[in-house]
Every structure is written in C-alpha cells, then in structure tokens.
C-alpha cells in the first residue's frame, strides 16, 4: 500500500492509494463544485450538468460514451452533492488508462442544445419520481430553515421550475468557471500504475486552462425552529432534525461520529432501543455529517402519524439525558468495535476506498490510511464525547415533519 500524489502545471491534482494486492482499480474525477456554488438563477445546474457529461464530447457521441464504458465492463456512475460532483468507474486493472481517458474526456462535454433539452426531461422525471416518495421535500425545506441564507441551504436537484427555466448558456458559463483544472482532483484506489496514471492525466487534462474558481466558506449560523408540512397522500410521517456539529476539518469529528453511533445507530443505539425495537417508529437514527466550514447532527425518524408527537418527545428526552449525563464506557466500547469493523469491511473494495481517499483529500488535503482512521476512533474518550455535547448541544435544533399529520406540537 503506497500513497502517491502529483500536480499538473495547470493545477489539476492526482492522488492515489496504490495497492498491488487488489483485483480491481477504482478511478474518479472529483470536482469541487455543487449546490453551494449556485445562485437562484441557476438552481440545480450542478446536478443537471452531471447528467450532461454523459451526452457526448467533440470526439464522442453519447452512444460512444455509454458503449465504451460498457466495453470495459466498468461499474461507473456520477453523483452531485452540496459540495462535490464526482465521476467514477471501477474497472479491471488493464483498463486503467482507457477509463481515465474516457472519464477525462466526458468532463469536457459538448453541451449541445438538443441534448440539453432531452436531458431536461430526464431531470424533471427524476424530480417527479422523488415527489411521489413522501419524505421528498423535507430535505430541501429543512436545509432552508436551518441554514437560512447560508449557501448550504441550496437544493441539489433544484425545482421543476428552476430546471425548466435554466438556459443552456448559463450552464455553459457555470461549466467554464467551475470545471477548472485547479478545482479538480483525479483520485485512484486499488491496483494503480501511478506513473502511467500521471502520464494519462497529462495527455488528457494537461491542456485545460485554469480559471481559479473560489468558494465562500463562512461558518453557518444555525437557526432553530419547528415546522409541519401536510402531505395527505403520504402513508407514514417523516421527521428530520438538524443540530450544529463539527466541520470537516475539526478534530472532534471522530468523537461526533461515535456519539452519533451510540445515540442513533440503526442498531443497538439509544434511539434504536427506545423507538425501533419497540415498534414505535419504522426508523430512528442520528448521524454526523461534515461539510467544509460547518457540520450537522441529523436525526431522521419515520413512524405512524399518530405516534409522531410522542416519539419526538422521546427523542428530546434521550438527547436531554445525554446532555446531562453523557454516555457510558460500555456504550463507547461497543460503538468503537462496530465502527472498527465497518471501516475494515468497507475498505476491502477499491470502490469503497476511492470515496474515502478522495473525500479526505478534497475536505482536508490529507491522506489517511485505514490504520490511522482506526487509531483516531480508538483514541476517543468519554471526555471527548462530553466536550462535543457541550459545544454542540443536540437539544438546540430545527425540526421538520412531513406526512399525513395536519398539525404537530413541538415537544416541551
């Protein structure tokens, strides 16, 4: 296992965790752009652009792109978040160069008018599909309530209106600015020939001109509140709650992760025993999510509408108890063995490592081995967890419910 990095003269970085024992190779272009870099006029453009990358380049039609990925037997896809847009493929090692050439080419797309119009329909169908799934809408609404005017409030998908109204010229301008080589990292994991990787990157991306895009990283000023959205056609009630948490570069993020596991893991946590095991809720979980400059604790709960108020009161009670008395040594040990095993299991596949290696580089410009992550988890003490609770009280949050309940009372 060896970590290698390189930087092209135009600013594009290449980082890789090279593992000679691996059977496969995972590769991805990680672009530092997402919903937080948009404005109202172009809401949803990052995600729409991600779709357009598969519609062809000056030298490849959309059919060529799809066909060539499939000819390599690649497992490939792309995703867009608030902060990043990632294009990736897992292939057998002999396709390393072909995969990088293809991925590199598609992120210099033609953005043709007719493809833009066809793909707009696909995006609108994607939004309509989510609209038929009741929790949809809650996510965007609570981000708006919690983050207020902060850029992390922006929706990744946008709305049917904003996507319909988006002019292709606006997308082209956004692309020119954001897909600058100094805003892109090529990440590799698994069986990688690094020198060849750099040579391929140079050939494909070396001529790209940098535009030095920037991003504002103000710390969010979290809002608190409680809102209930009535959705008659929903069967269950869905609740999301956001509270402040450590940011991507804060060292107390490990303690935050463990705290989330103890209080709200899918299994064996305090929320699990109180609400899920008892059958009072279909789901109840707490997790820590970090962003550049800020972080959140996210509580998610789904249940029969009639149980919502009582369940919210129970969650409030569990959080108040944790604020007051902290957690126990036994809970800490159990959470550590659980996370330890998960880290090892998810790291066995190059596909799993790709996102960890890429995430660490984009968020913190650092490389961490699996071992180093395990040590950081192991080093967390009860005192560290108490410090996180003191700094980021779970009891100060914004709550949003969506479902058949017409009205809900916020707990005590």
């Amino acid at each position, binding site marked *: 296992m060896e970590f290698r990095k390189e930087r092209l003269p135009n600013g594009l970085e290449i980082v890789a965790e090279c593992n000679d*024992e691996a*059977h*496969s190779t995972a590769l991805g272009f990680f672009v530092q752009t997402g919903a937080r870099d948009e404005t109202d006029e172009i809401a949803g453009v990052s995600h729409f652009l991600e779709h357009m990358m*598969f519609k062809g380049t000056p030298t490849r039609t*959309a*059919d060529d*792109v*799809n066909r060539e*990925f*499939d*000819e*390599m*037997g*690649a*497992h490939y896809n792309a995703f867009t978040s608030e902060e990043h847009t990632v294009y990736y493929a*897992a*292939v*057998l090692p002999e396709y390393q160069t072909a995969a990088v050439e293809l991925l590199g080419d598609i992120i210099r797309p033609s953005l043709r008018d007719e493809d833009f119009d*066809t*793909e*707009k*329909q*696909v995006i609108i*169908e*994607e939004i*309509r*599909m989510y*609209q*038929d*799934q*009741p*929790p949809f809408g809650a996510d965007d609404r609570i981000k708006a309530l919690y983050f207020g005017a902060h850029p992390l409030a922006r929706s990744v998908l946008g709305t049917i209106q904003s996507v319909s109204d988006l002019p292709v010229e606006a997308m082209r301008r956004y692309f020119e600015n954001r897909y600058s080589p100094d805003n892109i990292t090529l990440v590799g994991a698994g069986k990688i020939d690094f020198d060849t990787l750099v040579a391929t990157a140079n050939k494909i991306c070396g001529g790209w001109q940098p535009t030095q895009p920037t991003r504002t990283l103000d710390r969010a000023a979290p809002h608190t509140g409680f809102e209930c959205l009535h959705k008659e*056609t*929903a*069967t*269950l009630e869905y609740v999301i709650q956001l509270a402040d948490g450590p940011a991507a570069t804060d060292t107390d993020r490990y303690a935050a992760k463990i705290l989330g596991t103890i209080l709200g893991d899918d*299994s*064996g946590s305090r929320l699990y025993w109180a609400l*899920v*095991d*008892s*059958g*009072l*809720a*279909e789901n109840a979980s707490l997790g820590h999510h970090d962003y550049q400059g800020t972080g959140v604790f996210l509580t998610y709960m*789904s*249940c*029969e509408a009639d149980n919502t108020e009582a369940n919210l009161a129970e969650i409030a009670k569990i959080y108040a108890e944790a604020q007051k008395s902290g957690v126990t040594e036994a809970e800490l*040990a*159990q959470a550590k*063995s*659980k996370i*330890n*095993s*998960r880290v*090892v*299991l998810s790291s*066995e*596949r*190059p596909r799993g490592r790709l996102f960890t290696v890429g995430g660490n580089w984009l968020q913190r410009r650092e490389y961490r081995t699996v071992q180093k992550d395990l040590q950081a988890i192991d080093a967390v003490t009860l005192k560290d967890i108490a410090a996180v609770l003191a700094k980021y009280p779970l009891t100060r949050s914004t709550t949003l419910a969506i479902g058949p309940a017409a009205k809900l009372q916020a707990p005590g």
Partner: protein
Amino acid sequence: MKDSIFSHTYSNGLVLVAEPISSLESAAFTIMVPAGCAHEPADRAGLGSLVCEMTVRGSGPRNSRQFVQDLENLGVERGESVSTNHTSYSGATLAKSLPAALAIFADLLRNPHLPAEELDAARMVALQELRAIEDEPGQKVMLELRRHQYPDPWGRSSNGTVAGLESVSLADVRDHYAKLFRPNGTIVGVAGNFDWKRLQDDVGRLLGDWAPRDVADPVDGPQPPRRAHLHHESNQTQIGVGYESLPYRHPDYFQAWGAVGVLSGGMSSRLFTEVREKRGLCYSVYATTNTLKDRGSVLCYSGTSAERAQETLDVMVAELIRLAEGIHPGELGRLKARIKSSLIMQQESSSARSGSLARDWFHLGRARTLGEVGGLVDALSCESINAYLAAHPPRDFTVVTLGPHALEVPRGVS
C-alpha cells in the same frame, strides 16, 4: 482467480459450503433456512417476516438486548430477510470473530425464545415496514408485478398484508418456527478469511445434532390475472412488465440471462438507450431475471409522468418483442466484459460471495467456482443466444401499472 470451494453435508442434512479468500481480513456468512413466505397459511400473510423478527429478540442465553450487544461487540454487521423459499440471516465481521458469531446464530436457529412480550413490538415493526412500501411506488409496483407473474404462493411478497399480520398469534409464530426451522434444507455459505477444517468442526459442533424433520412443498394455486392497475394519486405512473423465462438450474439459463443483459445492464443497453437516452421518457428503466427453483421470469420496470406513461410502455414492449430478432456481436462483447469484471470484483467482497455460494447450492445442489461461471459466460455466442431467443421469444406479458390512469397494453400483445 482462486477456485477452491469446500462443502460438507452433515448427517442431519445441513449443508456447509465455503470458499476461503485469504487476501481479505473479513469473513462473511449467509444462512438460508427453508422457511420462506411460500409456506405461510393464506390468511397469515406476513407470518414469515414476523417470525424472522421474533427470532432476533432473544435466543439461547441472550435476551433481545444481549443478542444485539454481543454481536456489536464482535463487530458483526448483520441482516435478515425472508424470501419465497427462505428466511436468511447474514453477517460479516473481522475474520477472528467468525466462530463466535456463528455460535450466536446457532442459538438463534435452535433456541429462539419467541417471547410473548415481544410480539406486539415485532408486529408493529412488520406493519410499518409494510406500510412504508406505500410511500415507495416504484417498489410497490414490482412487488405487485411478481404477485401477478407467478401462481400463488410463488409470487408472494414477504411483507404480507395488514390483515394477515394483525391476525398472527403467538401460537402461529411458534408453530411456523417449529414446523419450518430445521437442518435439512438449511444452507450455510461462508466466504473470506477462515480455516476450512476448523469451520467444518465448529459448524458440526453447533448444528450437527439438530434434529431434521420433513415438510411438504407448497402446491401451486391458480394463476392470477396477467393485467392489473392500481389507482394511486401520483405524478408518475409506475410500470411493471413481466414474462416467463428459465430458472437458474436450467441448462439454457445463461442464454436467457445473457439476452436480458443486452436489454438492461450498462448504459448502452437497449432499454436505457431507447427509453431514457433517445426519448428522455424516464429516469429509471431496467429488466432483471427472477429465479425460483423450478421456474423463472424476467421483470421489467419504468416510472414516468402519467401523460408519458403510455409511450413508455409502448417503447418497452416493442423492445422486448424486438429482442427475439436477435442480439449483435458488439452487445455480446460488452455483456461479457461486464460479467467478467463483476466476477472478479465479487472476490473482493466476502458478503457478496457467501450469498452466492449459498444460493448456488439451493438451486444446483453444488456451488460453481467463479472460474466455472467465467467459462459458461465465455461459451455464450450470438448464435447460441439467438437460437434460444428464436425458440423462446418474449411474449404473454404480465402488465401491472400504478398511477392515476390505467394504460392500454400495446396491440398484438396477447
């Protein structure tokens, strides 16, 4: 690619099938118990899921809480599910914890408490899981498609019905367990980093003296209607189309499977190209093979705005019918490349591999090595797949829709 699969059949009929992968730090297991929802009494739909939920609520020396705590302290990631034929328990953990994890699951299989005081909570869990499907229309239409594709009990959804779940008593739970949980027909698949001899001894000690019992197979009920529309006030109409195909054990299965790979799988596949890429009709469209022991089918899905749903169904069905005209060498080449890389990547996941081993054994009475599967895939040719398609053209479609309006099934489709 390593080609070493070990297996052992204990005197009570229980099968252990295992493949060491020494490059991994983990080990994973999949235990398939022959207690599927096909065995539920017709008026107790969902009983199997409820029994599965009850089995994790205490067994042997552990109550519900100790069961979870012990597994989590061992770092075991676990999951349970009920299918037509099986109740399955799977787990993955660091290699050194495998023996202790298996011992906990042996208690679950043989000595579950099925405690009276947990029944209401378990029922509420099952009811909410069932009701959550109402909020996932794409999932719901595919469950309904399956229900219309096979005669009862083979098309059942393990989630059951509200009426079925509400009528289950503690006696039903205990009867279902006592009748169906047994070693004969149970398959334990293990993959990852372990020592075969020790594993064989451990499983023998834990499960070797579990007493077998005979259970009759369920019999076929009537074939449900091939058309259904479920009214739902939604933006989109969900479309499910099914047709008969072959089960995994059939000598021509890979021909049928290869043909479906041309329809769906990869973004250059026919359904994705015609429905999404060329026409922008939908976000998601796919076809997949579904196999039972003695029969199989192909199940296709798409979901799109109500006003574009008729066109989507027409294009999907046209592609299914066109498939009978044959596939092309380029399509076969891409299919083989995709399968080859999937097989090699399967070696990187102990969980994926342990599940494949157990399922192989159920269908074939043995497990194929990845090398053997690779050989079968290499042997596919356009001629062989096209000969199969000419003899078995997709037809007699089952069509289930869910949305604000029913659709017309295209003309010329019986």
